[in-house]
């Protein structure tokens, strides 16, 4: 049971960063970025180039890859989303599907379909009584908690955080308070690009780096974000942890390879019973 809880927390943390990125962009731009999975894959491949092709240590390759993909995410916004900004959420969602397909095929074109692995030393798992924790899981725990702490501090205590929260809360009021929405949008894509790259590295460490890795995570990431309340970034993290634990604990009563069913069931139940999420605010139409 203890092992399942640890595995569930790690699985939830793997979902937390892309769910946070998805929720962050939704809260400011009011559209669900379907390409979040492809962002994760792209980030993972950029880091692969730094780590394996250029021989950088993983932490350095991850930092450089996150910085580079953050800029690429802003570029994608300029090319694909910015011209459609006034067209509404559904148009932007469809545009993001196009972006997802394009990015995935760029990866296949340059890197092929074979799974790849980061160049990291192999180490024995650590044991704490009956609980086994491998080094990849420890890396995931430390990296995700550190990233979440940084994002939380930015959100709560910095000028940038207040800018983002203000635009997410009330864009017109933010404008008359002197906040430039386009600047906030750029910052949001920078942060989302870094978060998805980091999550790509962690998913790559946990499994492999391959073109479909982001696609595999798309449904759980959307479910986690909606579970938290999609416009509430930190609640998306809670949603991710809840989903990770639910998936893992479900293996007590069903075979491991049916875990994905839990995600579907949670998504269906949420949309039927509480579409505004566990921690979100119900939208009232007057």
């Amino acid at each position, binding site marked *: 049971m203890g092992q399942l809880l640890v595995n569930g927390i790690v699985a939830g943390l793997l979902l937390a960063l892309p769910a946070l990125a998805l929720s962050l962009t939704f809260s400011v731009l009011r559209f669900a970025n379907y390409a979040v999975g492809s962002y994760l894959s792209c980030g993972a491949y950029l880091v692969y180039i730094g780590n394996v092709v250029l021989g950088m240590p993983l932490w350095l390759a991850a930092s450089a890859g996150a910085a580079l993909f953050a800029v690429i995410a802003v570029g994608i916004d300029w090319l694909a989303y910015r011209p459609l900004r006034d067209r509404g959420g559904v148009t932007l969602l469809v545009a993001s599907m196009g972006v997802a397909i394009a990015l995935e095929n760029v990866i296949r074109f340059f890197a092929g379909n074979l799974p790849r692995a980061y160049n990291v030393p192999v180490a024995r798992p650590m044991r704490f009584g009956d609980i086994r924790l491998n080094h990849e899981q420890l890396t995931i725990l430390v990296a995700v908690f550190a990233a979440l702490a940084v994002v939380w501090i930015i959100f709560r205590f910095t*000028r940038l955080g207040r800018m983002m929260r203000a635009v997410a809360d*009330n864009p017109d009021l933010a404008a*008359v308070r002197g906040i430039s929405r386009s600047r906030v949008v750029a910052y949001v894509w920078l942060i989302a690009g870094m978060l998805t790259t980091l999550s790509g590295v962690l998913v790559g460490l946990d499994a492999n780096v391959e073109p479909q890795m982001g696609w595999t995570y798309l449904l759980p990431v959307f479910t986690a974000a909606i579970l938290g309340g999609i416009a509430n970034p930190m609640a998306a993290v809670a949603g991710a942890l809840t989903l990770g634990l639910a998936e893992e604990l479900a293996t007590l009563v069903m075979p491991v390879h049916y875990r994905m069913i839990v995600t579907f069931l949670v998504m269906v139940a949420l949309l039927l019973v509480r579409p505004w999420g566990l921690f979100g605010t119900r939208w009232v139409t007057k």
Partner: protein
Amino acid sequence: MRDVVAGYGGHPILHGVSFSVRAGETLVVVGPNGSGKSTLMKTAVGLLRPISGQVLFGEANVTTLGAPARAARGLANVPQEANIFRNMTVLENLQVGYEFVASHSAPSFGKRLDAVLDLFPEIRAKLRSTAGYLSGGQRQMVAMAAALMPEPSVLALDEPSAGLSPRNAEILFEVIGRVAASGVTLLIVEQNTRLGLGAADHGVVLVGGRIRLAAPAAEVLADPDIRRLYLGGA
């Protein structure tokens, strides 16, 4: 404003509106529902770009400037109803009101906070409260306080009495009187004709997107048509 035509999706709601507010004075725009008051306010503060005409701030033509740039020039705005950041504390609302607009030569945040809290002593005890949980009257006070934080030269208020009880509306207009007395130029759009014009130097009556009457507030209040149409013949 000079000959402003403005609306949504190319359909004009304001049809050639011209008026001006002198520095230090209070101008109140009144009119029935659907007369274009909110469109006028959005055009004035930069949330809506006019189809034609000019918006002038002092001598400068600010027609093409967005709301953030106009705010940086000293134009503060309190929109109607959704005028606070609900998920932030009152203190954060005041901080956001200050930090993205105040110039480097402006008084410090602490000094402005003290000055604004002297104007709105009711919110001093609520600084750590989440703004969305305050009463309607308190929210309106927070919204005005946040707008005044950067020491603006012009304050534009959109329907300040909307949703308030008559007593709270009176209290709010007392505060508006104090703000006006401090030298801030006020542009107010208000549905409560008597209350609004009672606090103004000048009044503008907007009907169907056109100015029907522009005169000193006392004259507007005394106009027989206005009394009959908007003051119940009183």
